[in-house]
């Protein structure tokens, strides 16, 4: 029996610029103990749907028509008081960014007990007992019941929020992006908690996410949303085996997969239609590589396409053929949308007349397209070979920050603390080579990036760029260095000055480096925009950043980095803020240009599959140190260090038939204010030995240049093992 049934739901937002049809005719059924994953890119209406179900839409949001039935009750006709009773008791939600939903001035346990007593009618004593049980269930230390939220780590807060959602034994749990923004190891453990609870409590779950591998790990059925509609509905296994909608096909191929890496990831160019004026035909038509004439005219409805599967595509009868064709990544690159954000596509199909700005144009790429590269990851590397093409050398570089000092700290009597952000790291980079830096947040990878571009100076050690020691360059040499080294930022919405036109932003570096001639500058800017596939470049010159989508903006950021033709690029989480559908496009372009321009690149990312896709070598960082470094495939397929092994095991597999194995390591990185005599990872290491606590492990290399800093492979490998319990008690 279905517990939740939604029929033809329509939700509008009234804004200054018109009515946005955020959810436009969604029907959905959720059976008891079903676990549904709702996938879609940002702005497709997932969260609005959630808010409509629990009726917490913002003031400008209105349910226009449709029906939401929960256990036979029509939620839209329910009086507010009864609806209030239903929330949390029957329908519990884990909101987006839920870690911030704990009240910072109340103890976590008090919040939980207050909820139990006020909403659940528990007595004081019973509430306490139940709170302890709940902490146990979600894997929290019950001694932490009376701690404040700021004393919890991100993962612990997330567990506490799950405990609160489950406190009143709801029949339906709706989780909105429950693991987004968590580190991969924490993410793995939260997913494990969710999976366990599903089984033990026989929960009905609706999980909203953009990450298909999370869905594969937790859900048994999938709905794909696109532009306010559901475009595909299926059980998890057939969905992952053979998607039945072109958008799902694209999404699936856009995802890097550690287990079976693709040569080229697919990028679904463009972005969803303007929901103020949705197109008459199929909403995906503008971005679909299989588009036909009729797609622009007929609006496809969800139809049964097979055993319990539904898809909204006019060509669903040819899907087997399309699926085979979709394997070819070049197919997806032939679609290019230059429409700007906020401009509705022109409806007429008559081509040939003067092309107004913002009209979607379909251009076919020539030889500049992001073609698959021949085996990008298997470039053989030899350590210490070819010093002539050595570009950059890090020798025992450290960076320390002092916190709690200064005049104010002095007056308050705060003790100054030292944060060891980067500790004695060394590596080399050759011209044209790409290196990935990976690790949990706080491991020092971004600090390393800043050191590399000299945004900050090293406390110790030596950074040598093309023969010059960066600590002793004068102003003139520094300016020269600045023209050769560039940085690409995580958040494209912040990386460009909102008050500058794109031309101004791109021409600034040229002005700074003394390009006097305006025409030469313009020519270089246009040429660079063209290089990053923003075409025709002239359209973009006088636009402001807010007129572009995230993917287009990140291309502009890339263009600005490349406009001076640098030798070295540091890309700090270049795609983590972008939708999955456009990530691959940025990565492919960056990778192609790095080859074309002979650019050495350092990618910083928490996402190992992404680094495997883009980098020749990968370095794993932990607490400011590099613990393992080597050729990408070696590191991913034969991880040596226990930390690397844990990181790789924690990456969710986008395949519902494979369940991630449980991890043997605890979550939570220690504060980087400590210095260790032995191995910094010893505290969390499942293989910890006596030697690890007292002796710093050396780097041990094999002949491929794959090195790990671990006693397991050195002279101390016979050191007696320590039991984790003993370690925890220390």
């Amino acid at each position, binding site marked *: 029996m279905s517990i939740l049934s939604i029929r033809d739901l329509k939700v509008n937002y009234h804004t200054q610029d018109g009515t946005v049809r955020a959810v436009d005719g969604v029907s959905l059924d959720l059976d008891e103990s079903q676990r549904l994953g709702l996938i879609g890119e940002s702005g497709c209406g997932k969260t609005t749907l959630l808010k409509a179900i629990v009726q917490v839409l913002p003031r400008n949001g209105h349910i226009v028509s449709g029906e939401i039935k929960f256990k036979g009750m029509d939620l839209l006709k329910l009086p507010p008081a009864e609806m209030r009773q239903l929330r949390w008791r029957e329908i519990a939600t884990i909101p987006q960014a839920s870690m911030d939903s704990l009240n910072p001035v109340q103890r976590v346990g008090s919040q939980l007990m207050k909820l139990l007593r006020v909403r659940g009618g528990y007595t004081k004593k019973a509430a306490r007992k139940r709170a302890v049980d709940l902490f146990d269930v979600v894997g929290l230390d019950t001694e932490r019941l009376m701690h404040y939220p700021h004393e919890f780590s991100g993962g612990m807060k997330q567990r506490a929020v799950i405990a609160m959602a489950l406190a009143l034994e709801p029949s339906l749990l709706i989780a909105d992006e429950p693991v987004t923004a968590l580190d991969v190891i924490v993410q793995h453990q939260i997913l494990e908690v969710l999976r366990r609870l599903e089984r033990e409590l026989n929960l009905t779950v609706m999980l909203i996410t953009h990450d298909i591998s999370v869905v594969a790990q937790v859900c048994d059925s999938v709905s794909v949303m696109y532009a306010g509609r559901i475009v595909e509905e299926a059980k998890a296994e057939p969905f992952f085996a053979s998607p039945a909608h072109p958008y799902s096909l694209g999404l699936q191929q856009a995802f890097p997969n550690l287990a079976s890496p693709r040569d080229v990831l697919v990028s679904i160019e463009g972005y969803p239609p303007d929901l103020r004026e949705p197109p008459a035909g199929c909403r995906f038509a503008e971005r679909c590589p299989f588009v036909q004439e009729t797609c622009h005219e007929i609006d496809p409805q969800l139809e049964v396409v097979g055993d319990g599967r539904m898809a909204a595509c006019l060509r669903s009868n040819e899907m087997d053929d399309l699926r085979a064709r979709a394997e070819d990544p070049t197919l997806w690159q032939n679609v290019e949308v230059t429409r700007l954000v906020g401009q509705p596509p022109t409806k007429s199909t008559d081509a040939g007349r*003067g092309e107004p700005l913002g009209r979607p144009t379909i251009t076919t790429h020539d030889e500049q397209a992001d073609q698959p590269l021949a085996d990008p990851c298997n470039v053989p590397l030899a350590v210490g070979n070819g010093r002539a093409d050595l570009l950059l050398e890090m020798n025992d570089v450290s960076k320390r920050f002092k916190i709690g000092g200064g005049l104010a700290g002095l007056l308050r009597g705060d003790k100054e603390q030292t944060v060891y952000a980067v500790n004695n790291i060394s590596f080399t980079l050759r011209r044209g080579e790409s290196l990935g830096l990976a690790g949990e947040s706080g491991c020092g990878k971004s600090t390393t990036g800043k050191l590399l571009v000299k945004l900050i100076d090293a406390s110790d050690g030596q950074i040598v760029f093309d023969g010059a020691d960066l600590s002793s360059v004068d102003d003139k040499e520094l300016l020269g260095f600045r023209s050769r080294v560039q940085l690409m*930022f995580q958040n494209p919405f912040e990386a460009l000055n909102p008050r500058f*036109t794109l031309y101004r932003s791109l021409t600034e570096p040229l002005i700074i480096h003394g390009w006097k001639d305006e025409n030469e500058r313009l020519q270089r800017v246009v040429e660079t925009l063209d290089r990053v596939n923003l075409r025709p470049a002239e359209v973009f010159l006088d636009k402001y950043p807010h007129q572009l989508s995230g993917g287009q903006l990140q291309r502009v950021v890339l263009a600005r980095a490349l406009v001076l033709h640098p030798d070295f690029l540091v890309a700090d989480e270049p795609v983590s803020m972008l939708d999955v559908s456009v990530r691959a496009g940025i990565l492919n372009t960056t990778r192609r240009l790095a080859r074309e321009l002979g650019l050495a690149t350092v990618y910083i990312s928490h996402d190992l599959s992404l680094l495997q896709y883009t980098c020749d070598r990968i370095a794993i960082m932990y607490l400011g140190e590099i613990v393992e470094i080597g050729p990408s495939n070696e590191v991913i397929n034969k991880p040596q260090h226990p930390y690397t092994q844990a990181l790789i095991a924690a990456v969710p597999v986008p395949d519902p038939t494979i369940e991630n194995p449980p991890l043997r390591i605890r979550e939570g990185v220690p504060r980087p204010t400590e210095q260790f005599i032995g191995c910094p990872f010893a505290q969390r290491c499942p293989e910890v030995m006596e030697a690890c606590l007292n002796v710093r492990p050396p780097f041990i290399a094999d002949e491929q240049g794959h090195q790990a800093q671990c006693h397991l492979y050195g002279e101390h490998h016979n050191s007696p093992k320590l039991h984790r319990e003993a370690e925890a008690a220390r």
Partner: protein
Amino acid sequence: MQQEASARGEPAGVATMQFRQGSAIRQLWETNLEVFQRDRMALFGLCIFAVFAIVAIFAPQIAPNNPLTPLKNNEGDWIKDAMPYWLAEPGEDEAEGYTNTFLLGTTNIGRDIYSQLIHGSRSALLVGFSAAAAVAVIGTVVGLLAGYYGGWVDAILMRAADVAFGIPFIPFIIVVSAFLDPSIWNVVVAMAVLLWRDTGRVIRSQVLVIKEQAFVSAARVSGASNLRIIFVYIAPSILPLSFLYGSFAIAWAILTEASVSFLGFSDPETISWGFMLQDAFNSLALSREAFYWIVPPGLCIMLTVMAGFFIGRGYEEVLFPRLRRM
């Protein structure tokens, strides 16, 4: 125009050159324009200022008499305490030997109140705008330097702001007036010395936010110098905030000048609205119910102060859109 050009197939370079002419100044102008287009109150405030500005500029032409010279009747006596002509008993003026043409009557030593009011707008606007400019400029520069450089620069400037916060304002002006010759500029100097503190603090906090944004790091990585980053990248973003505090400062300055004059620390040779009020107060105008002497300068002070706050509100709404709901 550029898209038309490319549609016609003209070379891109020619057309695209046009869009960036004076773009920074144009954008600032557009921000200011937006304030007054969006907010009728701000526009109203601007109109008030405009009217007073015209009056101030053409004061000698508008005012019928010299505001400082006592007017005399045919016998050479001062025309003391004349009522406005629309209030006076008909024929009274002829009996006293003068023609009553005074819109607002005369003071107790025979000065024309209407002419004083007209000339008073000069000192009000002079003090208002120069003090506002001083406060906005000093506050902006202090905020930019303290926020951008941080460390000791920040510590020194912000501790100086703490000191400025600790000094009571009106007593400070009285002390300044005691040391310097009486002049309306005392108010300007005192405001410049003390009131940059609010502007400086607020702008510093905004700079702290902006300088952490990636586009500032991007500029640094591209090799931009500190001065270029401060004035090309950060300053344009905080300029509306300077205008906001500037427009509030106009109101404050006029109010302060009136207070100081009322307390009797102003230059007796310069007519201001506060001076008029003090004059009226001292000559017991209140007890004689000479509202035509007291109300007009009070009304003028109120209008200019209101105008300053209306404009400030307009900037606030553009800067902090959330206020609009309230």
